[in-house]
């Protein structure tokens, strides 16, 4: 498999105001994301998740080290547009990333910037809206839609540019459970059916549990990295950095503290029920 994003010895600090020293976010960060994979990046507030995301399409440039996207060095200015075509970004607040006041016009915004001919834009827009299940809403005003719907519009706006990779920076933080489900289903489908690489930044454990791989950031380092089962079974490490595991795993962990030795790899209700059945069957 080829590499979609690779971060090599990245260091970054936000510049300080006046003469105060800046805030160091990364000192020596390394991460590779394989093409076509679905990676969740977990971490508490202020762990550098968003800063990392902004390096993926050259909104921020490394102070040291390199970030490569689809083989392109993000710090080369000539390649900027190529980098941004390659990696689409979806942000937390859906209201602040929708440009136009008609759904389809907003989805068209990206392709229009690329200078594509109008019939081709029309085709891309329709296709993108169908892929996120918002085609019927193409003539609606975005401000009248629900949070989950708005976020799907934002995703459509990104995939209409046909990127190889989508980076979502806490896309569900402002949504209700239904909206969160909608967004997550859409993203999972795009990854599975279209082979788009997905980097999902979140602090919801249950969302991260649905990814293929989970990277836990803390203090500017990837402290845990592996499949959801591998990562969430490290309950103690997660607790020590202010995170937690899904409740199903937490339940097994609490039982283990009472003297049981259950496996900590159950993420779904069914897995948890089966594990408990084995231990408690009369």
């Amino acid at each position, binding site marked *: 498999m080829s590499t979609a994003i690779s971060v090599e010895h990245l260091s970054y600090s936000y510049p300080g105001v006046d003469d105060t020293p800046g805030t160091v976010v990364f000192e020596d960060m390394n991460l590779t994301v394989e093409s076509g994979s679905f990676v969740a990046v977990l971490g*508490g*507030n202020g762990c550098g998740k968003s800063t990392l995301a902004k390096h993926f399409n050259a909104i921020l440039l490394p102070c040291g080290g390199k970030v490569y996207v689809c083989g392109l060095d993000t710090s080369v200015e000539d390649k900027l547009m190529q980098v941004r075509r390659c990696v689409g970004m979806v942000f937390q607040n859906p209201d602040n990333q929708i440009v136009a006041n008609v759904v389809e016009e907003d989805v068209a915004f990206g392709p229009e910037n690329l200078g594509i001919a109008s019939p081709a834009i029309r085709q891309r827009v329709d296709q993108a809206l169908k892929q996120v299940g918002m085609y019927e809403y193409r003539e609606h005003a975005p401000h009248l839609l629900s949070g989950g719907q708005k976020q799907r519009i934002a995703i459509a706006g990104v995939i209409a540019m046909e990127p190889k990779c989508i980076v979502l920076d806490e896309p569900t933080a402002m949504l209700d*459970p239904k909206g969160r489900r909608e967004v997550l289903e859409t993203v999972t489908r795009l990854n599975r059916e279209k082979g788009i690489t997905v980097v999902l930044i979140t*602090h919801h454990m249950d969302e991260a549990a649905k990814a293929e791989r989970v990277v836990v950031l803390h203090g500017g380092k990837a402290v845990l990295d592996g499949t959801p089962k591998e990562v969430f079974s490290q309950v103690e490490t997660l607790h020590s950095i202010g995170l937690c595991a899904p409740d*199903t795993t937490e339940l097994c962990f609490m039982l283990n503290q009472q003297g*049981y030795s259950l496996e900590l790899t159950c993420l779904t*209700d069914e897995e948890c*029920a089966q594990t*408990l*059945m084995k231990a408690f069957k009369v």
Partner: protein
Amino acid sequence: MAPILEVRGLTHIYSVGTPFEHTALKDISFSVEPGEFVGVIGHTGSGKSTLMQHMNGLLKPTEGTILLGGKDIWSDKALTRQSRFRVGLVFQYPEYQLFEETVYKDIAFGPKNMGLKPEEIDRRVREAAGFVGLSDAQLQASPFDLSGGQKRRAAIAGVIAMEPEVLILDEPTAGLDPEGRAEILENIESYRKAKNATIMMVSHSMNDVARLADRLLVLCDSRLVMEGTPKEVFSHAQELLDMGLDIPDVTRVFLRLRQLGLPVAPVYTLDQAVEALLALKGGDHRA
């Protein structure tokens, strides 16, 4: 004990007489006892936020009455204004309402509007800051220099400083990480214990309300469809799921365990789940 809040036949219709007319609440009645922790759940647009804004007189009922300490809050003007202070309302994302130069001044805004003496304002500001764990140095800082979670807690302190008998919070933990969520919920509990205050909390997190609330109100399509202890409410698991709501993770796991033939009672918090499972083995712990 007499209820602190009583809602009788509350109906609210927005934009009456225009094509935008829309019923947000329909014939809602319930009461809240002093010191109770009431959780309010319901899908987006079910009328939760509209209901909350009636409790302190921000919205006037189209029909029905709201009694605070036995008196109709709309019966006279002074009482309506008083209800603003006796019932503290924390909106969603309250940190976006901070406006003063220092955190101290911002927290003092509510008490100042109450017309209190400077010494009393100072006492309340410091006490409120204590409840939410803000230090003296942070009180003198600009609210815009705080971190996200701190801003949220400063905003909540601004309402707590009015020392409301009833504290209402609309999704106080939205958008925070697990640590931030736990902190805010602890702050609320500590205020409740110290002042024997009544709490109403709107939340999408079933795990949180199951753990904290004494009683739950379930709203669906502008109506109050269920009311009871978490145990009672979550025993209607299927109905809740049909309304597009969740049930706590452990409740779902235990439902499955019963299907698989394990004789366990329904539970809705982690602690209960552990207890129930341990009881099953009669304290016989396997090594």
